[in-house]
């Protein structure tokens, strides 16, 4: 039936595929931290247990065990005990089911570090910052990088001799190292921009002009540090794609025909663009990862900062919540790009249908 609708077929197969990846990501996200880590309750008890007498400590521990779903609970919410009165530990499979159902409801559990604050609360506060920083930066870097890469391939000359090695050097530098350089140069040495934070420390987030201008002021350095490097990285890929396109017959033929230069550039650009679109999808994960560390350098109040504090404080629920969310975002972005490619490139759909 679907044979007659190649586009729909393409979208459905992609959707199914990404769903499978999503399941795998959830499984990895749940089981990896539990491979070596000790019982999270031990960690939290070390924090709160001091100063409690044993009976109170035990009660406290059991209430935590219950809250983190580590013990078997009967219908009334009482902890099931074995003969010696010890709580029965829940199997990892049961814990996993519980984790999945809770995550589906948007509940990522309770943070250890900021107990009793919910992980989803912390993430909700952080995510607008991350999106505001990374979405425009990565998209803009991608566009500018591609234009520069095409120019380098077509014009050669200064673009190739100067910008290309520069882009390669940028590519060799981690996002955060470049961020550190910028902070040191422009914030510490020259006092041009603020070194850390997403807005001035004495302000409270609001929709007032003072706050927004302060946020923009704080935005510039982290923006530059991600933008310049990702533009460079994309330019390198686009350059070699365009050089490849320039060697093909249709370009040579167009040149012989005397087609106008900007038209040839347009043809070349359009054809070299498709693989770059796939490239954007595939490198999103890397870019998001790199940009997360940039947030740490700038103490930008986004997800990267949450991950950092979570890692430093062994806050497993927060780590897991953040990593799961980042994975989901990257998967969604990849999926959208894949669908866009399906619409832009008829060959992709045809290839799917012919199989």
């Amino acid at each position, binding site marked *: 039936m679907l044979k007659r609708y190649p586009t729909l077929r393409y979208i459905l197969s992609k959707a199914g*595929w*990404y769903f*499978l*990846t999503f399941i*795998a*990501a959830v499984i*990895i*996200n749940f089981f*990896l*931290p*539990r*491979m*070596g*880590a*000790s019982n999270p309750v031990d960690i939290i008890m070390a924090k709160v247990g001091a100063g409690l007498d044993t009976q109170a400590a035990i009660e406290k521990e059991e209430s935590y065990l219950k809250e983190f779903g580590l013990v078997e609970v009967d219908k009334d919410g009482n902890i099931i005990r074995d003969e010696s009165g010890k709580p029965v530990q829940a199997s990892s499979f049961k814990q996993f089911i519980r984790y999945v159902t809770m995550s589906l409801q948007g509940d990522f559990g309770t943070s250890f570090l900021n107990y009793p604050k919910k992980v989803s609360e912390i993430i909700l506060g952080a995510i607008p910052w991350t999106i505001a920083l990374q979405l425009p930066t990565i998209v803009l870097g991608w566009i500018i990088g591609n234009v520069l890469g095409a120019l380098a391939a077509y014009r*050669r000359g200064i673009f190739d001799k100067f910008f290309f*090695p520069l882009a*390669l*050097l940028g*590519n*060799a*530098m*981690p996002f*955060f*190292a470049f961020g*550190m*350089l910028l*902070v*040191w140069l422009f914030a*510490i*040495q020259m006092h041009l921009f603020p*070194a850390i934070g997403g807005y001035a420390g004495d302000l409270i987030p609001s929709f007032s002009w003072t706050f927004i201008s302060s946020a923009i002021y704080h935005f510039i350095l982290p923006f530059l540090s991600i933008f310049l490097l990702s533009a460079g990285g994309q330019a390198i890929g686009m350059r*070699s794609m365009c*050089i*490849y396109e320039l*060697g093909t017959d249709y370009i040579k033929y167009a040149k012989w025909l005397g087609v106008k230069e900007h038209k040839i550039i347009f043809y070349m650009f359009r054809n070299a663009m498709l693989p770059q679109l796939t490239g954007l999808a*595939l490198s999103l*994960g*890397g870019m*998001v*990862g*790199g940009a*997360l*560390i940039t947030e*740490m*350098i700038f103490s930008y109040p986004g997800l990267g900062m949450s*991950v*950092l504090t979570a*890692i*430093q404080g*062994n806050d*497993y629920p927060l*780590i*897991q919540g953040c*990593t799961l969310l*980042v*994975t989901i975002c*990257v*998967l969604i972005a*990849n999926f959208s790009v894949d669908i866009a490619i399906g619409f832009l490139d008829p060959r992709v759909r045809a290839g799917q249908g012919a199989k």
Partner: protein
Amino acid sequence: MKILKNLLKTPFFIFGVVLLVGTLSFAYILPLFYHVDIKTCVGAPYMPPSAEHWLGTDHMGVDMLSLLISGLQSSLYVGLLAGIIATITGTFLGLYAGFRGGWQDNTINMVTNLFIVIPQLVLLILISSSMKEGRSLTLIAVIIGLTTWTWTTRAVRAQAASIKSRDHISLAKVNGASTITILFKHILMYLMSYVFMVFIMQTASGILSESAISMIGLGPFDTVSLGTILNQAQRNEALTDGAWWAFLPAVVLIAAIAFALYVINQSMEGVFNPRLRK
């Protein structure tokens, strides 16, 4: 040999090799002339460079140049080991999938596609944070290697699949050569230059991954690496104190080694792929 000649004629390649040799001698030749000691505090915290301590001291008063030398050695070790693991795993899986086809190909493809979209940093964070104790340099290299093989697999698979239908492979099959023989003798040989370039890139990305994972505080506990130096500098406010010697040299070293490898890779690509030549 002709390839080597062509390479030596490329100034870009020479530049990359010189830079690489320079960084390597920083790690392995400089210690012959400079007393490396990363254990004892020899001065006050964040002492600026002096004749005695060429790059000053870190936040504990440990000699910075010693830390850098030993950190570069660790980073090179991690990069190399991660590069070897990723290249071998990726090449082997890619060769097998491309040559075999059928369900083996589909399965390997599925796993590859799966791990290619899950952000590598997420995997690194999850694995490293679960291994709280005994996170050695080798373990980190293994983790990085096992999370970056996917690109290699995908690329090698495509190459192997295109070589598969060539005449000499059919001839080898008719002669009764085993799968292993065909894979290594008749396909891998054709891809050797490609695999070598992949290895260079994997090593560079291994060094960068190590610095990233150490930067967020999930680095090795037992040794110094360029990433842990940066992490310490960031944590102990080297930036705001203006102690540039605590992070700038480390940044330069990371960039230099990765840049050298990228340049070498890029110029090799130019020689192996004539289309890229002007």
